[in-house]
């Protein structure tokens, strides 16, 4: 596009260097140093201490639990995210605009409030579904289903928000041609639509996964933090930190830090594949 042409200046004035210094200094202090510090603190006392920090039954359980929540929430939101984006892009129906507004809500609502909402729904004491929860002895709050539910809630918007603009850019012509040539609905989706929106889907999945792995506020409300049962990786890190197990806390943190850095690298790569993807 014409307006996006690169016009970075090659020769930089003294004022330019001042602004660059200010900007980079700020970025370094607030983001750069902290991220380096994670790995410094984790490996500070050597590899053995690091391994001992990470190689505990609680830590492994926490990692497993976090991955379980991710593996349920992300595929679910990918399927429904693509369907919802498809509906909004291709169909006219009552409540279309409402749906668009609703989808953005999880990005706005504080994670603590998200946790509270699910406690108010499914807690065995004083909740909306109190009767059924007790009748059928459902374990949702302070158990893994609650963790999965809040993870699904907080990762809901990402796939929709990435896929929707991709579908709208794509337009209908190719789908219509496929239909006239005799393709059925599934063939149209798998062979025409999906190949065209695959980078957008992947980008949405990437953002959802990063968010799901790192969710902290909402899970700390619904988990009850039972060690070896409902402690996710972020909760494990918090616990280690509060117990002054600094190496163990930073060992866990280094895993999530690594995931975050990988996420950034993948974002860069995906943006190169599909320059339509903005941040």
């Amino acid at each position, binding site marked *: 596009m014409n*307006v*996006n*042409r690169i016009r*970075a*200046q090659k020769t930089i004035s003294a004022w330019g260097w001042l602004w*660059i210094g200010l900007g*980079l200094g700020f*970025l370094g202090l*607030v*983001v750069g140093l*902290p*991220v380096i*510090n*994670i790995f410094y*603190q984790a490996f500070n006392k050597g590899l053995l201490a690091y391994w001992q920090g990470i190689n505990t039954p609680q830590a492994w359980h926490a990692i497993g639990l976090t991955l379980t929540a991710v593996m349920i929430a992300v595929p679910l939101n990918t399927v429904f995210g693509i*369907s919802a984006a498809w*509906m*909004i*892009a291709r169909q006219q129906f009552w409540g279309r605009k409402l*749906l*668009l507004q*609703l989808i953005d809500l*999880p990005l*706005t*609502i*504080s994670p*603590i*409030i*998200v946790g*509270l909402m*699910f406690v*108010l729904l499914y*807690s065995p004491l004083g909740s909306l579904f109190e009767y059924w929860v007790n009748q059928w002895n459902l374990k949702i709050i302070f158990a893994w289903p609650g963790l999965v539910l809040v993870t*699904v809630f907080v990762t*809901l918007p990402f796939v929709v928000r990435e896929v929707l*603009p991709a579908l709208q850019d794509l*337009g*209908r012509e190719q789908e*219509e041609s496929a*239909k006239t040539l005799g393709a059925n*609905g599934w063939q149209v989706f798998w062979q025409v639509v999906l190949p065209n929106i695959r980078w957008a889907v992947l980008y949405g999945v990437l953002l959802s996964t990063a968010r799901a*792995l*790192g*969710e*902290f*506020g909402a899970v*700390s409300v619904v988990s009850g933090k039972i060690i070896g049962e409902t402690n996710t990786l*972020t909760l494990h*890190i*918090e616990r280690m*930190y509060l117990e002054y197990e600094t190496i163990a806390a*930073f060992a866990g*943190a280094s895993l*999530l*830090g690594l995931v975050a850095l990988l*996420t*950034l690298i993948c*974002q*860069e790569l995906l943006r190169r594949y599909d320059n339509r993807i*903005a941040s």
Partner: protein
Amino acid sequence: MSPLFQANQSRLYPWLLGWQWHLNQRVTQALVWVYFLFILVLPLSSLFWKASQEPLTDLWTAIAAPAAWDAYKLTLTTALIAASINTVFGLILAWILTRYTFPGKRIADALIDLPFALPGVVAGITLVALYGPGGIIGQIFDPGNPLGNLLEQLGLPEVSLTTSVIGVVLAQVYVTLPFVVRIVQPALLAIEPEVEEVAMTLGARPRQLFWRIILPQSLNSLLTGFTLVLARAIGEYGVVVILSGNIPYQTLVSTVYIYQRIEEFQLSQATAVAIVLLIMSVLLLGVANACQGWSRPWDAE
């Protein structure tokens, strides 16, 4: 209806697809709605259900409790400070990333998104290890060090970058750093280079260029960024809970206040404050959308 959408609508479409397709559409629609009702609408309505169970006077007492009140004041004040800091530095960062080439530019550009990707609790503990008392940078404020001694003589014996209001601001600045940069960047790119060149040839100084051309054209996105930062900072929990020390009436923000009420199982008090917070962030988001309605074409109808 947006022009984009109209262009997509072909008259052939419904005719081509027949009743089976129509049925498929209906089933997908129904499934998606059920999913959204169950995952989104039901949890949201639980807040208002809980609020409706309580007498209005109780609700008001919970909303206006002194500790809750101090928490709102702290949250809003620190969010305003954080938003101002990030608007200034966000503009600087967006400016240098769009106008200059310098070593490490790509890394800087990628690093800006890090607060989106790095979990709050991880950011919290590393920020404490850096800026907390005895931390790598924080220790220069500790008593016994030159700067610490100077502060002590000035009558500020225990300045700390964490476990204080500064800690709350630092947490909110960290979390909301990407917003302004990412919103202002496209606005700066969209300013036609010719406009600046013409201004330069007509003898405009860099300062005039900034106040007369750059600022007016990016004002919209700066305002959007500012409001988004406010909305996000108000709801922040993960970094704040670790960095602020959570001292009631001093460094206890609203989200931590809600969390503590939930821990004590005072759900109606938690709900009352949560609704106040929710209304604030939805209003702020409305303002942000109003500032920038044009930038999301699929929203327009």
